[in-house]
Structure formats: structure tokens, C-alpha cells
């Protein structure tokens, strides 16, 4: 090295001979913007009501770290194997891979990771006991998710459920061909392993009062769900061959095989209607679905509708029942009126309007109603109720101190997935309340509960990706039971991934908004200012030498870097 501060001519070389590294020069001072690694919300996770960290898990699977991925998925979601079967997976409809060969099979991946992690070794480590106790009223998905997360956080949690076994609608409302009982049982067993106590056959309001619960526990979470069917409100509804869909389904799913009419109208377009129709089919009844709007407006999971249609179930759209036709004491048909679609209502769906004089009779021997459910909230004080729902604010806090709520009773009939997400959120709120003694100003979105930082204000859609780095790779076909075979069986319809298939599918994942060490930033930096972090994940930017050109941001395939103003 030459003398940098020479005193004499002798200290200089003969000519311009340079052997000091330019690394000594802080060219990073030139910049006015600087790149920063900033993970953002992938479109899939943005739409995931359960708040699953999909991209990170996909990345782990792609690396072959299947157990780590399963552990991550189960770390806050106690029902991945269940959701991997019953979730309507809105994630896939928004998946950015749709532009490059078809959505990633996220739903199947969730099932794969759930099925992989039934061993208690997959549970996160439980935090040290806080000495606090929480009662969760209702053992459905929302209650389970809340209980699981609170137990892992170190609280003592007891779930009270009026049914003989926990699971709520998962047990009583979803047929085996969609969710085998064994899967649910194993997930609930894991929740118990995580420290949750289930007290079944106990109905709050009948066997124990709310006040008593508030006395015994530091917090109470109301998550009783919607399980009371709403009536049709048409003449003839009181006939014994007009069944309540929720109850009928529950009986069938619990193994009863009641004597039923040969051909039955199933009224409704939601998941219960689909589950009832498909279950009836499997026990030898011929179901006819009657729905007052068109297929497009059906609240049921589209795939369930398609599967039902594939199984040969008859559908009558734009048809509203007006009377149960009873002749000689027997149901002979369901009188209906044809509907047409008018202006959109507050739900955004077009409102059905009756067509004058279009009455006709659907010939059936019985009717099952499945037009919606409501909650039984009489155990709550008036102030904590708001019609069918619990009066809870956006933080899931009720006016009664120490009483919180989650699930359908807060947000109306939703999906199992939404219930899980709400359970996670209420757990976070209750945890804050129990550990800090105060309530949060606002409840974070469920994605805000991830243990890695993510800019929740920015969602990565296909426009934010750099298409130069993605090639079209088609979505794989998933195994599916033959429709003819499944007409007569409660065997599971959808097959799952093999390990190899899961890894191959995860490799298709664009890992939107999430650094996956693809190295583009590292390799395209003209200033050699980005370096691997040694053994840790990711990269560091050398602020002394980054000139802020932004090539790393532009060439990041997945928008996991952002340019920030340099603060002077």
C-alpha cells in the first residue's frame, strides 16, 4: 500500500501506482434514495382470512424444508389439515401465478402441511405460564383458534362446548367426504396437547352463567357460532317432512340414517345447502337444490357447487319457494316462483325480484331448509347483544369488561377460515389485555400477527412483480375421487399432495413480496454493496457504498425491496 499522507517525495511511488482498495471511499454518501429490504403482503395472504403466511411457507417447502414449513403453518393456525379441506381458498383466486400458468395449489399445500404435522413435535414451544385463565365459550373454529393461541402464549384456557365433542360446525355441519372426522379429532388432540382444556356437554346459560365464568376466569371469549337454522316463513313449513338443514345434517354426520322421503328440495345456496344436498345424495335421497338467485351469487364455495353438479345434483336457480304443497297429509311438492335479478343490494349481489304469475311446483316428497343460521346469545346481558350478533367493536371487545367475542357471532355467518382468523385476532387482543392490563387502540389485521415484519400497507399484485423472471409453468392436476363412485360414499373426494408434488408445486410459487434469496439484488448491484448475511437468511446493504441506483429494487422479481428517501 502506498503512503496515503506522505510527508516527503520519497513516500510516493514512482508513478501513478494505486494499490489502496476503493472500499476506503464512502461512495454511499452520493445517494439520495436508498434500497431497503421490505417484505410486503402477497396477494394470497392479503386475502387469507386465517392470516396464513403462505409465501414464507411455500419458500420453505421449495427449499425442501417441509417440516419447518409445517411448523410455521401450525404455529398460529391450529386447524391446517381441516382448513386444507374446507377452506374456500380465496388466496388462489388472487394468486399472482394465475398470470403465469395457473394459481398455486395453496389449499392443497395447507392440507399437505396440516397432515404432515399431527405429531406434537410440530407444536410451537409454549410460553411460560402467565397464571391467567381464559374461558372460551364455544368449541368451534373461532374458539379453538383463540384457545390454541392463548394457551401457547402461556395462559390457562378452558373451552366450554354444549356438544358431546368439540369442533362445532366442523363436526356437526361438514360431511366426511369433505372433512374426515379423524382429521378433526387429531387437530383437536393437538390443541389439547398445546394446553387447552375442553369441557364438553356444558352449555353456558344453562349449566353455568356468564357471571360465574367472569368470576372464575380473567377473560371470557364468546365464540358460540351460528347454529340455529332460520325458518323459510312459507305456508306448510310445519309439516314433519320439512326439515331443518343444520339439524338434519348434524344427525347424518353423527351417523344416524333417518327414514327420509325419496326426493327432497334443498332450499338455499350456501355451504350448508351444498353439504345437505351432497350428504342426502350419499344416503340415497335425490336432492333438488332451489336457490333464489343465480349460480354466480351463490355464497357456497364455488368448487363445492361444481362438485355437487358433477355428482349429478339438480339445481333450480332464480327460484324462490312460496308454499309447501301438502296433499292428503303428504308433501307432494314445493310451490315456487320464478325470480329475476334486479339492482344490487347492500351485499353487492343483485337482488332477486319475483316474476308475476310464474308460480310452478317442484315435485318433491320433502323439503330441507338451509337458508342461513343465527346464534343463541340469551346468556349474554342485553348490552352485549346486537340482534343476532354480539355487540363487539373492531377490536372484538364487548361492552362487558373482560368479555370478548369472535367468529360468526361477531361478523355473521362466515367461513371456517374467517373464524380461525378471528380467533387468532381475539387471542392477540386478550393476550395484550391480560399481560399489559390495557386494551389495544385498534386490533391489527391478522397478518399483523406474523413473527416477521411485513409492510401491511402494500400488497404485491402481478403489476408489482418483474415478469422478466417468471416463466409459465402449468398448475398440476390434483387427484379427485370419481364422481360416480362418490355418489354413494362419504369417502374424501379430494386427494392430497405427495412430498415430491408439494415441493414441485412450491417451486412454482413466485414468493410474492417475500425475499427468498433469489440473489438478483446481490448479482445486479453495480456497486458490490449487497452481501449475504453469512449463516442468517437474507442480505445486508452496505450503506457506505450503495449509491442508491435502485437496480436491486427494479430487478427484485417479487417486490421484496423498496426505495426510501435518505434522511439527511
Amino acid at each position, binding site marked *: *500500500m*502506498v503512503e*496515503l499522507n506522505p510527508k516527503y517525495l520519497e513516500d510516493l*511511488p514512482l508513478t*501513478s*501506482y*494505486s*494499490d*489502496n*482498495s*476503493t*472500499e*476506503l*471511499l*464512502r*461512495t454511499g454518501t*452520493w*445517494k439520495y434514495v436508498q434500497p431497503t429490504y421490505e417484505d410486503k403482503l402477497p396477494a394470497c395472504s392479503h386475502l387469507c382470512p386465517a392470516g396464513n403466511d403462505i409465501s414464507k411457507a411455500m419458500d420453505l417447502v*421449495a*427449499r*425442501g424444508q417441509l417440516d419447518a414449513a409445517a411448523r410455521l403453518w401450525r404455529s398460529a393456525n391450529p386447524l391446517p389439515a381441516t382448513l386444507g379441506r374446507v377452506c374456500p381458498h380465496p388466496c388462489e383466486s388472487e394468486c399472482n401465478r394465475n398470470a403465469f400458468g395457473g394459481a398455486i395449489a395453496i389449499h392443497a399445500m395447507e392440507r399437505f402441511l396440516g397432515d404432515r404435522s399431527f405429531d406434537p413435535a410440530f407444536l410451537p414451544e409454549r410460553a411460560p405460564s402467565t397464571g391467567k385463565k381464559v374461558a372460551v365459550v364455544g368449541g368451534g373454529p373461532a374458539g379453538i383458534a383463540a384457545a390454541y393461541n392463548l394457551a401457547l402464549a402461556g395462559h390457562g384456557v378452558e373451552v366450554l362446548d354444549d356438544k358431546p365433542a368439540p369442533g362445532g360446525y366442523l363436526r356437526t355441519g361438514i360431511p366426511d367426504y369433505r372433512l374426515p372426522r379423524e382429521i378433526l379429532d387429531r387437530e383437536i388432540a393437538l390443541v389439547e396437547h398445546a394446553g387447552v382444556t375442553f369441557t364438553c356437554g356444558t352449555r353456558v346459560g344453562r349449566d353455568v352463567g356468564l357471571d360465574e365464568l367472569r368470576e372464575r376466569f380473567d377473560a371470557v371469549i364468546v365464540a358460540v357460532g351460528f347454529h340455529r337454522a332460520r325458518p323459510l316463513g312459507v305456508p306448510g313449513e310445519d309439516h314433519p317432512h320439512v326439515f331443518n338443514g343444520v339439524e338434519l345434517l348434524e344427525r347424518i354426520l353423527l351417523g344416524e340414517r333417518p327414514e327420509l322421503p325419496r326426493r327432497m328440495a334443498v332450499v338455499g345456496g350456501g355451504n350448508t345447502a351444498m353439504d345437505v344436498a351432497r350428504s342426502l345424495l350419499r344416503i340415497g335421497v335425490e336432492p333438488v337444490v332451489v336457490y333464489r338467485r343465480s349460480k354466480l351469487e351463490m355464497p357456497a364455495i364455488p368448487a363445492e357447487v361444481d362438485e355437487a353438479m358433477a355428482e349429478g345434483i339438480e339445481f333450480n336457480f332464480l327460484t324462490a319457494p312460496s308454499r309447501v304443497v301438502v296433499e292428503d297429509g303428504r308433501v307432494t311438492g314445493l310451490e315456487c316462483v320464478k325470480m329475476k335479478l334486479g339492482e344490487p343490494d347492500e351485499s353487492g349481489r343483485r337482488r332477486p325480484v319475483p316474476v308475476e304469475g310464474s308460480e310452478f311446483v317442484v315435485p318433491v316428497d320433502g323439503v330441507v331448509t338451509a337458508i342461513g343460521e343465527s346464534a343463541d346469545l340469551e346468556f349474554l346481558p342485553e348490552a352485549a347483544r346486537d340482534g343476532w350478533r354480539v355487540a363487539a367493536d373492531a377490536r372484538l371487545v364487548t361492552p362487558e369488561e373482560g368479555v370478548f367475542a369472535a367468529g360468526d357471532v361477531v361478523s355473521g355467518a362466515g367461513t371456517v377460515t374467517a373464524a380461525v382468523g378471528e380467533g387468532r385476532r381475539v387471542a392477540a387482543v386478550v393476550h395484550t389485555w391480560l399481560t399489559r392490563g390495557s386494551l389495544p387502540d385498534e386490533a391489527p389485521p391478522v397478518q399483523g400477527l406474523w413473527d416477521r415484519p411485513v409492510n401491511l400497507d402494500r400488497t404485491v399484485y402481478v403489476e408489482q412483480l418483474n415478469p*422478466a*423472471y*417468471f*416463466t409459465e*409453468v402449468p398448475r398440476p392436476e390434483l387427484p379427485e375421487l370419481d364422481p360416480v363412485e362418490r355418489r354413494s360414499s362419504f369417502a374424501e373426494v379430494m386427494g392430497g399432495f405427495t412430498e415430491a408434488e408439494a*415441493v414441485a408445486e412450491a*417451486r*412454482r410459487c*413466485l414468493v410474492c413480496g417475500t425475499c*427468498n*434469496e*433469489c*440473489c*438478483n439484488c446481490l*448479482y*445486479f*448491484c*453495480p*456497486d*458490490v*454493496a449487497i452481501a*449475504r*448475511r*453469512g*449463516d*442468517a437468511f437474507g442480505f445486508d446493504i*452496505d450503506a*457506505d*457504498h450503495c*449509491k*442508491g*441506483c*435502485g*437496480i436491486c*429494487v*427494479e*430487478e427484485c*422479481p417479487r417486490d421484496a425491496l423498496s*426505495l426510501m428517501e435518505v434522511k439527511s
Partner: protein
Amino acid sequence: MAVDLTMYDPRNLHLPEHEIMRSGHMACPGCGAALGMRLALKALGPDTMVVIPACCWAVIIGSYPYQALEVPVLQVAFETAAISASGVRAALAAKGRDDITVMAWAGDGGTFDIGFQSLSGAVERNDDIIYVCYDNEAYMNTGIQRSSATPYGAWTTTTPVETPKAEPKKNMVEIMVEHRIPYTATASIAYPEDFIRKMKKARSIRGATFIHLWISCPAGHKSEERSSVKIARLAVETGIFPLYEVEYGTRYTINHEPAFTDIREYLELQGRFRHLTDEHVETMRRNLEWEWQRLRAKVEMGRKLPLPPAPVKAPVDEGEREPAAE
């Protein structure tokens, strides 16, 4: 932490990890020439000597007493890149050192224009050097004057918007090909693996090799710094800068079939083309089509022809000489 990235999307990069170029150099933000050098030296490894004539890199490397490369570098007169590389090679040969790669690293002015004669001499002698022309299509170091590498229609300070460059870019690659050297190739900073493979191939050849590397220049192209790689990629994907290689003046291989993206996407990112009329663009399109017909015809011709008969003292291809530190 080496992660096997092959599991990701096939376009993920797999490049040698070692760095010969250092940070703290004097390149402008977003400089394609800096990125190009970094990639070139990743390919060549530490057993390399570099010759740099007057060009942006004469400044980028750092002023006395600093230097940005961890290999010996000789700065030489503008027009002498090729002969200087030959001189270094001759000295190494005289010392019995045959384990060192000598790379001349010159801009388009130093290659297409002022260094043309010396380059022609060196490749005609088939001196064992790798000559890389990093081409930003004008004299950028002196403040954006036209060179014979400036494309048709481009603005420079000596081809103002009233009279943008009227002549097409000189086809330097074809001129090198006609010297019948063992290896000539084009490359782009947006396709680092292709570039690195070509550099390694050049390194494996005993004889003269010429790599024409297209680089972006935010200052001279009037483009955004962050778009440097994107513009380089579009130069390839529009077909404007084909990625191909030629062995012994005969065997042509197109290395990347472009998407033939609309050239407007490329032009619109660069202020130097902002003044262009629809007629200009149409002329460019027609020219582009003609150039591709010509290139494809050469590929066809090369398929039909055998390689030229080897001279008595043929340059020896000794196979891959892997950088020791890789």
C-alpha cells in the same frame, strides 16, 4: 450460505460467488459498465490481468492511490487497448507464465473508432487475449458524443435532436468475425449467466476472442438509474441487440431467441430517443427486421459450411481453465 437455487424458477441466477471488483469505485449510480466489469471478473477469476484504455473505466477504477479491482491493472492510451493486452501477454509468455488471462476492457469509442486499428492488428495476429468492448453507444466519459457505435436516430451532444445520428451502428462483431478469430460473441449485463459462460469460454481459448457487451448508461442514455438492467434486457428482447456467438468466423449460434418486444418499449425508457418520429421508429423496425434476416442467413450458412481448415500452428483449445478461487 450456499443455497441451491435450481429449485426456484428457472430464471433465477447462478453466478460465481467470488468478487474481484470492489465497492467504492467511481461509477455513476446505475452504471452498466461497473456491473459488466463485476460480472466479467466473476467469470475470469483472480488469475487475470486487465488492460484499460481511456474510457469510463479509466475513471471508475478510482483515482491514485485507489484501485477498485483485486487484479493487476494497466491503464493505457485510448487507442491501444488491444496491443497493450498483447504486450502484457508477450511479457507473460517471455516469463513462462501461461496461467494468467489477459483482458482488454475498452469502451465503444476505444474499440469501434480510435482503437480499431490496434484491435484489428491484435486479432489478426490471433494474440491470446480476451477483448471486451463494453458498449454504451457513445463517448460517455467525455460527455455524450456520437461514436460509430451510436445507433441510428440517437441524440448525442454532437448529433443534436435537429440532426440525430443518420447512420446505423457499425457492426463490430461482424468485423471481428471476418478476422476469423476463434471466438466472437455478444453479451448483455441483463443476461449474466450467458455473459459469464461466454467469458469462460473465451478464457478457455488460446487465441484472440472478442466479446461485445451491451451496457446501459443512465447519464448518456438519459434513462433512470434503476432501469439499467431493464433497458439492457429490452435491447435483447426487442431484437436490437441479438445475443449470439461465432466460432472461427463460421459457426453462428443465437443464444437467446428474443421475444421481439415492440421497440417502443425500449426507446421510451431512454431520453436519447425521445425526439424520434413515427417514421424514425418505422425505419428502425424495418432495419431490425433486415438485420435479423441477415443474422439468420448467417446461421444457416454456418450450418452448411465446415470450420475453416486449421492453420499449421492452430490456436489450442485447452478446455475450461477454472478460476482457482471458485
